[in-house]
């Protein structure tokens, strides 16, 4: 560094003196700086985001006039009762949660060996390469990654062409719940790989050596040392895969698109977009919210937040 930096003015210049006074004030009153820094994000989040969540919750206890589609501010729990009593809505909720669980399980199964290879076997450049190879699909357009699978699973798409080439019969997966499951597993997979890799990378090598020294075989070491230490990473990943699947409506719409493939999100989407019934949509949206809240509480118990 040069001896005299021209940008560091002497204290006698008025601007510099004023800046020193301000700095001195913030040094003596540290809380003032904290308040100044925190006020904008907190006000923005409090007044818009939290207020929105509150408004959503409140509106779920209102009704919509079926003729004028105006929201009537009459307090009742009819929306919740409709969801509870209707077999159709119940099966939609169960399908949503069931497929979310299946997707989470599939992604954990696909991700764990890959994460293990990245963390413990690959090194240097090949690890960086794998990391980028996992990261890039995560950031390329979600919508397009869903759409591609329509082209693949179509009757005359790549999948059936390949099956035909190897002499297998065609599969009719397009627009079924199978398609929804495959597409979800595909689009959220990187969200599982990254935390699993992170958790496995943090397992100290000395623990594995100690386990081997104490006479454990490879499988035993994996089951009793590596797996318990990597589990928070799997749970952290599952928060993403589970939550993202629960709240999605685009994949069921594009990969499924039939009444039998509807998710909670699709009912909410059409309640807002088509029938303009925000109170009912809000009530139905509270199901994924409640499920996620419970899931996050369990995940925190299992130490998943440290692994994110």
């Amino acid at each position, binding site marked *: 560094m040069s001896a005299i930096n021209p940008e560091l003015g002497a204290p006698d210049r008025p601007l510099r003196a004023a800046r020193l006074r301000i700095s001195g004030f913030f040094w003596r009153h540290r809380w003032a700086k904290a308040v100044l820094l925190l006020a904008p994000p907190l006000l923005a989040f409090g007044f818009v985001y939290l207020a929105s969540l509150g408004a959503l919750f409140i509106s779920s206890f209102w009704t919509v006039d079926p003729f004028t589609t105006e929201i009537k501010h009459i307090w009742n729990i009819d929306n919740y009762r409709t969801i509870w009593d209707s077999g159709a809505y119940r099966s939609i909720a169960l399908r949503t949660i069931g497929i979310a669980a299946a997707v989470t399980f599939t992604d954990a199964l696909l991700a764990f060996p890959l994460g293990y290879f990245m963390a413990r076997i690959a090194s240097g450049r090949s690890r960086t390469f794998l990391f980028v190879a996992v990261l890039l699909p995560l950031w390329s357009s979600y919508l*397009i990654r869903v759409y591609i699978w329509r082209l693949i699973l179509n009757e005359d798409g790549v999948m059936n062409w390949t099956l035909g080439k190897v002499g297998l019969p065609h599969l009719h997966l397009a627009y079924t719940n199978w398609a929804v499951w495959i597409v979800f597993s595909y689009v959220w997979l990187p969200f599982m790989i990254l935390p699993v890799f992170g958790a496995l990378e943090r397992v100290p090598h000395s623990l594995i050596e100690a386990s081997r020294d104490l006479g454990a075989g490879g499988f035993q070491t994996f089951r009793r040392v590596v797996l318990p230490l990597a589990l928070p990473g799997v749970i952290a990943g599952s928060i993403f895969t589970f939550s993202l699947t629960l709240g999605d409506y685009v994949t069921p719409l594009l990969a499924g698109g039939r009444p039998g493939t509807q998710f909670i999100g699709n009912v909410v989407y059409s309640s807002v977009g088509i029938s303009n019934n*925000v109170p009912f949509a809000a009530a139905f949206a509270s199901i994924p919210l409640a499920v996620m809240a419970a899931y996050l509480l369990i995940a925190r118990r299992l130490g998943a937040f440290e692994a994110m």
Partner: protein
Amino acid sequence: MEQRSTRWALGSWTVLVILFLWLPLGLIMVYAFNNSNVQSWPIPGFTTHWFRVAWHASEVRTAIWLSVRAALLATGFALVLGSAAAFAIARFRFFGRETVSFLLVLPIALPGIITGMALNSFFVFNHISLSLTTIVIGHSTFCVVLVYNNALARLRRSSPSLLEASADLGADGWQTFRFVIWPIISTALVAGGLLAFALSFDEVVVTFFTAGAQNTLPLLILGYIRLGQQLPIVNAIASVMILLTVIPVALAQRLMRDTGVVARGTAK
């Protein structure tokens, strides 16, 4: 150390999963050059016609322009709010600190449909008509956390004694910011900003609820796909978008690697 056969099995699994991730992306690039209107496999021949059509479509241009403006504004808000919050959380201990960081992460932890619905009913509730402003507000909620996470990670790895040293040497607050804090944090902010831009540009779940009658590029594409219209154009735009998102993310990845003097001492 793992046995040879285990390593081999894990390696093959890795290759298969990476192929599973990338083959579909490669496939859309091939479809973009499809010279037929019918989206079946194998494609009968190659053409670059659809890129030209997409480039000249006014609907597509309007949508791209709206998406770019929304993403730039949301990224701007995210940079200001996210870095302010990160400074406060990294440098101060106060009551409710955990709650604040939880609040900031909430928009990406909650299902997107909840955020979208909530904002939609908030706007309807307050008689705010849906416009570019409401899109930007929606995107800002989940873009803030990206900047916040990147900035916080960088600040946590830098030592607070650097700031004290700077003050001891006679620097005022601005000089400390300009010559100490900024060099530490600038690349993290750029990385966070790039990720925020990429996420905003691509977002569809929340945007549907906050855009009203306007079409951002993802909303336009969603409409095309649903109606089965203009699919050749969708293919062309899709492959360009995949190539374009690669750039900011690869840049962000490079920028977040440890570079400065500051990180060297404390990083593992």
